[in-house]
């Protein structure tokens, strides 16, 4: 009889509990770093909906991240302080932009897709960099107030690192759960089918273009959500978020962690940040050492660090 791949939820549950309790035991700075890992992890998991599941390498995710951040910054500047409104607006703006970019980009494949998304991303970057009146130009927008949350009469603010961490944690947990649902839904299976063989999808009646646009838009929306969180966490929105070099971060993280595993990119984000912190501790030439460490990761971990280790220890003999 047909059996689905056993989704072992023990690991994710354990991880959730660990993340929930982490602030109680680790120092404040690491709590903040963990917030950043979660935010970038969300960006990477969103990107991986394209890279790992749909087989599209987007080099323009920074644009949607930045749009989320700018939306949040501008709303806060205008006095909107409703947390949900800001989160949703950031997602929506990113979603709309991704629909437009996706509409033009998805008919291309591989490196052409990467290049056209890079081009579109850099156009957004150019706009943010030059539209002084709205985006603050190259300096970006500083953010002074944070939204608050009225929870059963309690006014919850996020000015302390711990409160901010839990805000990030909850939003990322929900977002990643939603992405998990999507990846395992019928739509998710069609995405994987497109990754394997887009011609075949079209010859079983799937409209590859609309399906890909949908995937691109969803990925963009969640990337935008990560951008909103990043803006709240750092109190800023800057054009740098839209630059291609920022877009390359989630790609690096996904590959380090493993694009074939749902949570791989999240682990990739963690590995990336921790590696960086450790290297910086010892040398100013962290770029050199990051490069030296990345090379064997690419060469010897074909499914990413997390993916390869998982396959080695848990899935032996499945193939």
């Amino acid at each position, binding site marked *: 009889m047909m059996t689905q791949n056993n989704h072992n939820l023990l690991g994710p549950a354990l991880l959730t509990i660990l993340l929930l309790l982490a602030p109680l035991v680790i*120092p*404040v*700075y690491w709590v*903040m*770093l963990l917030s*950043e890992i979660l935010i970038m992890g969300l960006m990477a998991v969103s990107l991986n909906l394209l890279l790992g599941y749909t087989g599209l390498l987007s080099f323009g995710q920074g644009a949607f991240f930045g749009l989320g951040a700018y939306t949040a910054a501008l709303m806060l500047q205008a006095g909107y302080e409703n947390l949900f409104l800001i989160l949703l607006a950031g997602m929506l703006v990113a979603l709309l932009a991704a629909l437009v970019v996706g509409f033009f980009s998805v008919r291309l494949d591989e490196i052409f897709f990467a290049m056209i998304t890079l081009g579109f991303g850099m156009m957004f970057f150019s706009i943010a*960099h*030059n539209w*002084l009146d709205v985006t*603050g*130009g*190259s*300096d*970006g*927008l*500083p*953010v*002074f107030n944070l939204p608050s949350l009225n929870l059963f009469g309690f006014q919850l603010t996020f*000015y302390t*690192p711990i409160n901010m961490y839990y805000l990030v944690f909850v939003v990322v947990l929900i977002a990643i759960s939603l992405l998990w649902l999507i990846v395992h839904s019928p739509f998710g299976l069609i995405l994987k089918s497109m990754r394997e063989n887009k011609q075949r999808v079209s010859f079983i009646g799937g409209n590859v273009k609309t399906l890909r646009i949908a995937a691109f838009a969803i990925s963009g929306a969640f990337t935008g959500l990560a951008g909103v969180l*990043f803006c709240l966490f*750092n*109190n*800023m*929105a*800057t054009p*740098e*978020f839209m630059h291609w070099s920022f877009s390359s971060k989630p790609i690096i993280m996904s590959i380090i962690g493993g694009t074939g595993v749902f949570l791989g990119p999240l682990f990739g984000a963690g590995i990336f940040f921790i590696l960086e912190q450790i290297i*910086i501790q010892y040398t*100013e*030439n*962290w*770029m050199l050492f990051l490069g030296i460490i990345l090379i064997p990761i690419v060469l010897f971990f074909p499914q990413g660090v997390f993916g390869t280790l998982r396959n080695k220890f848990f899935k032996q003999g499945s193939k």
Partner: protein
Amino acid sequence: MKKRVLSILITLAFVLVSVIGAHAASTVKIGFTYIMSGPFSAYGQFAKQGAELAIEEINAAGGINGQQVEGFFEDSTGKADVALRAIRKHVYQNKVDMLIGLDSSGVAKTVVPSIEKMQTPLIITHAATPDVTGSVCNKYTFRISLNLAQNVKAAALLAKETGAKKWTTVGPDYSFGHQSWEYFEKYLQELNPTTTFLPKDQVAFPPFKTTDFSAYITKVMSSKPDGVFISLWGGNLIDFVRQANSMGFFNADFEVLFSLGAATEVLTALGDKMPEGLWVGTRYWFLANDSAMNKHFVDSYFKKYGAYPSYNAHGAYSAVYAYKAAAKKAKSTDKMAIVNALEGLKIEIPTGTIEFRKGDHQAVTDAHWGKTAAAPGYPHRILKPIKIFKGQDVTPAVSETGCSLGAAM
């Protein structure tokens, strides 16, 4: 019984010693955040050298309020989010008492709100945007270096003297370049209402990553101005000067002002390829004054690093001394006490005597300009003659800055 008393005594002694020891070993911690890697790491290196020299001197002289100083250096990479992470590390992990640093204007402008939340004083030593002591100023943020408005005000005064009527600009295509030009227009217009400025679409703003300036050089030359105000810096400036030189730019019949032309890293790289007789400005010039303090700084810096101190080295060096002075004034290194002590603090630094204005926390400091000249004994151009614009003449009134520090208090 006796044994027990003894052991208690010994334990007590240990506790006492360790408490005293801990107290004696406690240091004053300063967190420095500069660009330590990537294309602009030279600036971070200069700053680090300046800071380390100051710390060494201060420690040799007994430290700050009797405590030794410990410096922590973190890499901003020139990106706002990374810089903020570095600052967080200083505040939460290294537990510093004081923050010093920041090269990029964009970084400075966007991390400032977080500085206020972390309630740790910061002295900015390089970033020039008027906004950090203007529209986004806050109680914890100070700046010791010359800001854009001050530098450009001096340029405008100089421009007026040249008598040139029609001005244009070449500036990097980001906020710094555009703001420099806006301030220049504003100040020069005030000083000499008959001056004209080329409209925005006729001036040259090469993108920051430009390496080939020929098209811009052509553009400026063909617009036939009387004066060109140039706010390029670093590698852009070096490339521009060399290409402009080979295209006859400096032989043309117009005045040229380089607002950041007297930076040592630029002059050193260019050597004798820097034309003589050009007006160049800077935030600090190592030959600009003969004070004992400046002499001492230049000599000991040269002795230690084999080079003349750049403005960024000077900024970091001076900021450490400013902190020392504030701690002395406050008789404490408590963060709030330092903030209060820094407000209105008057102190001599190598470039001259400065004062952190209460109203916006900007240091009122002199602006230096000069003409490039060859000089025996120097591997690069020096400034001759030097023109010093007094701090009070070039610093805009607090009311003009947009800072509402006083009002909020």
